[in-house]
């Protein structure tokens, strides 16, 4: 810490540290604490306070409607009743003076009725507000924290959660199988020049916006997309006769696009650790008579273990937290991803407390996955940080 002060001077270092502190506090610690706090508060909408709130909301809405009618309701002129807001006049079959008189009688009766109703609503609101005060005090006296949000996940949601996790593990494993050879070729098999070109080819797609890359896959998987067109051309399908395959129905599409989207997060860490391996070790093993698989199993994989662990963890985390890929690719033809349910809890049913509990559950499961992977690979946090 002191060395940073020495290198950058007091001012810049202070600014830098303050920024970091603000970032950690405002964007990480506080939202997490807020979320965790809410997740342990059960928002029961069927208790007295919930009912009062509900009723109050209804009464306020009612009152607003009446007020509107009073202020902007129909008026009378010589032609009869005119609604400014609706632009209509009622004059049919009535003499000029008669219509106005009739209208005025009607509207004064109506106004009195509306005013009475508003008074009544106001008195109901006052009563409810008093009751709400009492109920609120009663609720505040109760201990607010409970695990109820965590234990009330429905069977369907649990199923979705389990499926999301297993799918994500599958994505991570598939990505690993795919990326290990790629990393091996770039890190250990190619001359530096060729490795640089391969590397560039890996990075370039990531200059394109993620959504664009996802949408690009729609042109492939669409009912009249590239894949079906090719199969049509080969005579397997017949687009004209509606003999098509609806690819969006199959989980494979989500896997494919998820892997494609996050593949770099697998390749890079593996490449990084692998490229630190002294190639002489590989040649030494060859010279001692080892076949290719043994060299991988005994030398390259053990050496790249930290990178493989990081890549697997990152890909899994990103897949579990994916939102746009499953949303765009499935087109509603496949079950939801768990992130969609969290979204629904927050923004569709406005139940932030339950949403917080859901997302905290997901976070915990992801953390457990991290530790399982780390112990599986016998990699310590220190080692991960070093890479």
């Amino acid at each position, binding site marked *: 810490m002191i060395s940073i002060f020495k290198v950058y001077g007091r001012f810049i270092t202070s600014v830098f540290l303050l920024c970091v502190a603000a970032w950690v506090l405002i964007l990480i610690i506080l939202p997490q604490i807020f979320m965790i706090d809410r997740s342990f508060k059960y928002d029961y909408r069927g208790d007295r306070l919930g009912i009062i709130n509900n009723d109050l909301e209804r009464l306020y809405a009612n009152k607003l409607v009446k007020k509107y009618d009073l202020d902007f309701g129909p008026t009378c002129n010589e032609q009869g009743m005119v609604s400014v807001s609706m632009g209509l006049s009622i004059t049919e079959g009535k003499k000029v003076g008669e219509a106005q008189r009739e209208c005025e009688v009607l509207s004064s009766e109506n106004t009195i009725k509306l005013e009475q109703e508003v008074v009544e609503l106001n008195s109901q609101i006052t009563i409810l507000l008093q009751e709400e005060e009492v109920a609120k005090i009663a609720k505040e006296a109760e201990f607010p924290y409970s695990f109820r949000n965590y234990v009330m996940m429905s069977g369907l949601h649990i199923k979705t959660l389990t499926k999301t996790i297993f799918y994500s593990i599958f994505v991570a494993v598939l990505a690993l199988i795919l990326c290990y050879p790629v990393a091996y070729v770039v890190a250990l098999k190619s001359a530096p020049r060729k490795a640089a070109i391969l590397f560039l080819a890996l990075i370039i797609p990531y200059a394109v916006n993620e959504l664009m890359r996802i949408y690009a896959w729609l042109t492939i998987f669409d009912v009249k997309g590239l894949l079906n067109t090719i199969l049509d051309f080969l005579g397997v399908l017949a687009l004209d006769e509606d003999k098509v395959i609806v690819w969006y129905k199959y989980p494979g599409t989500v896997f494919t696009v998820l892997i494609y989207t996050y593949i770099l997060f697998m390749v890079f860490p593996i490449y990084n650790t692998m490229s630190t391996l*002294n190639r002489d070790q590989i040649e*030494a093993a060859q*010279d*001692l*008579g*080892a076949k290719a698989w043994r060299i991988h199993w*005994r*030398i390259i994989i053990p*050496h790249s273990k930290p990178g493989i662990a990081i890549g697997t963890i990152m890909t899994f985390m990103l897949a579990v937290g994916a939102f746009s890929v499953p949303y765009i690719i499935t087109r509603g033809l496949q079950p939801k991803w768990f992130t969609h349910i969290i979204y629904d809890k927050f923004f569709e049913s406005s139940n932030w407390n339950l949403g917080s509990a859901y997302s905290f559950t997901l976070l915990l499961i992801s953390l457990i996955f991290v530790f399982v992977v780390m112990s599986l690979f016998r990699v310590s946090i220190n080692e991960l940080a070093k890479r």
Partner: protein
Amino acid sequence: MHGQKIELVNLSVKYGNFTAVQPTNLVVKAGEFFSILGPSGCGKTTLLRTISGFIKPSKGQVLIGEKDMVDIEPRNRPTALIFQSLALFSLMKVWENVTFGLEARGVAKKERYKRAIDLLDLVALSGEQEKYPSELSGGQMQRVAVARALAVEPSVLLLDEPLASLDLKLRQHMRSELRAIQKKTGVTFIYITHDQGEALTMSDRIAVMNHGIIEQIDTTDNVYDKPTTPFVASFVGQSNVFKGVIKSIAGDLALIETVHGTFQGKASDKLTKASNAMMFVRPEKIQIGGEQQQNFIKTTLTRRDLEGAYVNLFLEANGEEIVLHLTKGADLSALNIMDDQSENIISFSPRDALILQEGELAATGKELVND
């Protein structure tokens, strides 16, 4: 373990337009300690890697024990390579390192462990089997690499400057150990080095290589005493070089005219009259005094360095530097060489002067002499 003969027949290696190894013929006898000596970039490592199978020759054959090796993978050759970086498997214990070759051959773990203990005994590393390479010293790592290579019972052990990263004391110690191991096992050793001291102390025979060409293959004594090219003469050991023109040749002696005068020396076969030539005189073959001799030079002392057992005198004559070694035992004060700028006559016998056709000299020959 029995060493096998190695034969390179008209072997050459090209990288694109660059020829790393010019067409080479070489025979290494079974059970021999053979060194290939040359400056870095001379192609000696390429030659070694071609023998071990990591580089395919552009032309020619590699025969090990009369068998053509060209289409045989490195892992199936009866050779074991010791890398300059040692290339120990850093994530395996010492005993696993040593017996990796046996593991690849499907030997059971118990048997392997026993073999590891035996091999570690051979290289004086008993009791270190459970350590990781990073816990060992440089010399110990070196010996693990040797044990690992010997574990597969190779007929030929190829060593690529394995001592380069060790300090002087350890290097000298390892030289005698390697030599002893070679004698004990009878394996053919091919040893690559740029250090002529290493090559001279350990080897039965030496090949001196430059620019992809083997300039001389001979016993250590002959390489030092009877170099056949200016490069060998200047690369192996230290030499004073006098350039000149051949005046006459009589039997095995020739007269050469240089800036310092005309000298007599031993003539090589290829000399012709009036051609450009070089005369090489080892620093230890020059004496102080001797005006009555045929070969003498008037010089001025510029500098003297104490080098342990002997003294290096740097003398100047006609703008050229001449080096001479004096053993510490000689009475230096009597020789009038205590003061710089003192005038001295030096001389050498014609038998100790070697005259060769003019050719390329080793750039770093002088600096390498004492390390």
